[in-house]
């Protein structure tokens, strides 16, 4: 029988946002809600929890409870980057990982048990690969939900292994908030006097389905340990990343569009792409004021034409909440195949464009990288001459 391992990092997004300011982990701090979202707190530090602040609390209530509370701005790009680093370290150690959201990852131990000498040593190896700075916890069971529950109750740096026979007994005293249920349904269950997984599991399945619907019935199934499903290891994402830093924050949409076009051109020109098509992209930015922004986009069908990708990505730029210091483009997933006939006749101007590119390649070959730039107008109306336009380096 296969064993499923699970690693959980509580408050991962807050920890990722605090990587640059670790001192705040020792102070009452909480992850601020995203701009425009409901003003509910994200994860909180242990010190904040001691002072009565809870994740999901209203911001006003939290600040009234603990006036010294520090609100940490969300940093989704840093969280994604750190999470990707953790997944890669696990993969480097031989674990075929299936991420279940930031701060939670599943894997099967079968392939590495003989390598590390059993389930427990394999989990300890996984904890070491994640790194003790993240306070990761590991759990293992024959079913996914039981493994997740085991990891959630383990202490930092510890491993909890649950046998399949002991699953019901292990799950019974655990709180309901381990279940992926809407807060309203959690409250409804609590009002009905159901506070533990064991209490939910004892109820008759059809009655739960009738009262709480499909979601409730699924939760009832999980309270019994959940279904046996294998873990499917992810395909590691590609490493084609291009970024552009601006000397000062840029909020002008026209400039951002030009910068995006340059990034796309450079990313598509990277030799690692090897003619493959882009299936999924991510656009992220470092914002003025220290935060970050990130959007991922899966294309309806894979593409490698600059114009199509530009048309798909440009509308995302209007969602930027603040001026940016850096714009970053990642080709997250590429297709396997490289050969597809897309255009029979080159569009008008294509030949001239090709010659121009060839000429620029020649200049680059003789003068080195960074010698060919495009001038992009940033603020042509500015009274300060050096603020009107930028040189943007281009490789293609």
């Amino acid at each position, binding site marked *: 029988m296969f064993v499923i391992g699970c690693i959980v990092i509580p408050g991962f997004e807050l920890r990722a946002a605090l990587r640059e300011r670790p001192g705040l982990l020792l102070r009452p701090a909480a992850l601020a809600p995203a701009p425009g979202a409901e003003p509910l707190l994200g994860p909180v530090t242990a010190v904040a929890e001691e002072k009565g602040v809870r994740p999901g609390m209203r911001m006003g209530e939290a600040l009234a409870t603990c006036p010294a509370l520090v609100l940490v701005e969300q940093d989704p790009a840093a969280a994604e980057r750190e999470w990707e680093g953790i997944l890669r370290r696990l993969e480097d150690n031989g674990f075929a990982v299936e991420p279940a959201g930031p701060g939670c990852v599943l894997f099967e131990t079968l392939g590495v048990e003989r390598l590390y000498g059993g389930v427990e040593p394999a989990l300890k190896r996984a904890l070491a690969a994640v790194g003790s700075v993240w306070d990761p916890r590991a759990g293992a069971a024959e079913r996914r939900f039981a493994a997740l529950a085991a990891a959630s109750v383990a202490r930092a740096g510890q491993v909890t292994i649950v046998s399949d026979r002991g699953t019901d007994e292990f799950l019974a005293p655990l709180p309901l908030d381990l279940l992926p249920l809407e807060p309203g349904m959690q409250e409804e269950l609590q009002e009905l006097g159901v506070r533990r997984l064991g209490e939910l599991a004892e109820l008759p399945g059809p009655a739960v389905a009738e009262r709480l619907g499909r979601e409730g019935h699924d939760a009832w199934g999980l309270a019994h340990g959940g279904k046996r499903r294998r873990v499917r290891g992810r395909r590691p994402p590609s490493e*084609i*990343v*291009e*970024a*552009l*830093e*601006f*000397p000062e924050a840029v909020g002008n949409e026209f400039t951002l569009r030009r*910068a995006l076009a340059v990034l796309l051109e*450079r*990313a598509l020109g*990277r*030799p690692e792409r090897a003619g493959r098509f882009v299936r999924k992209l991510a656009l992220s930015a470092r914002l003025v004021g220290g935060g970050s922004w990130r959007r991922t986009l899966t294309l309806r069908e894979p593409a490698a034409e600059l114009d199509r990708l530009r048309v798909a990505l440009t509308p995302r730029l209007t969602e930027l909440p603040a001026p940016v210091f*850096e714009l970053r483009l990642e080709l997250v997933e590429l297709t396997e195949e490289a050969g597809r006939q897309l255009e029979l006749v080159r569009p008008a101007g294509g030949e001239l464009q090709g010659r121009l590119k060839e000429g620029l390649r020649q200049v680059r070959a003789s003068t080195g*990288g*960074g*010698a060919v*730039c495009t*001038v*992009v107008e940033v603020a042509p109306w*500015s*009274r*300060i*001459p*050096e*603020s*009107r*336009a*930028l*040189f*943007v*380096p281009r*490789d293609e």
Partner: protein
Amino acid sequence: MSEVLERGAPGGVRTAGRVNAPRRALVDPAFDGTPRRVNRQPVALVREEWRVVDRWWTEEPVSRRYFDVVLEGGQNEVVYRDEEGGGWFTQRGA
């Protein structure tokens, strides 16, 4: 173009540079503040003079006194005195 920095070729982060960035100049001013010599060349004519005061609401305010001059060698130059940080600069595109 010398301001365009590159890191981590062929991919990685690159920095966009400013067009028409100011360059330090050696200016010998007259008693009224107008330039008499620019980069050791005597000024033949001050064609125009103007001020740019901007970004006073930020931590990096801009206050400049610009001069469009013709040097004795026939060259045109635009120079300014930075009244915030001090010093003289030449600048194209002004």
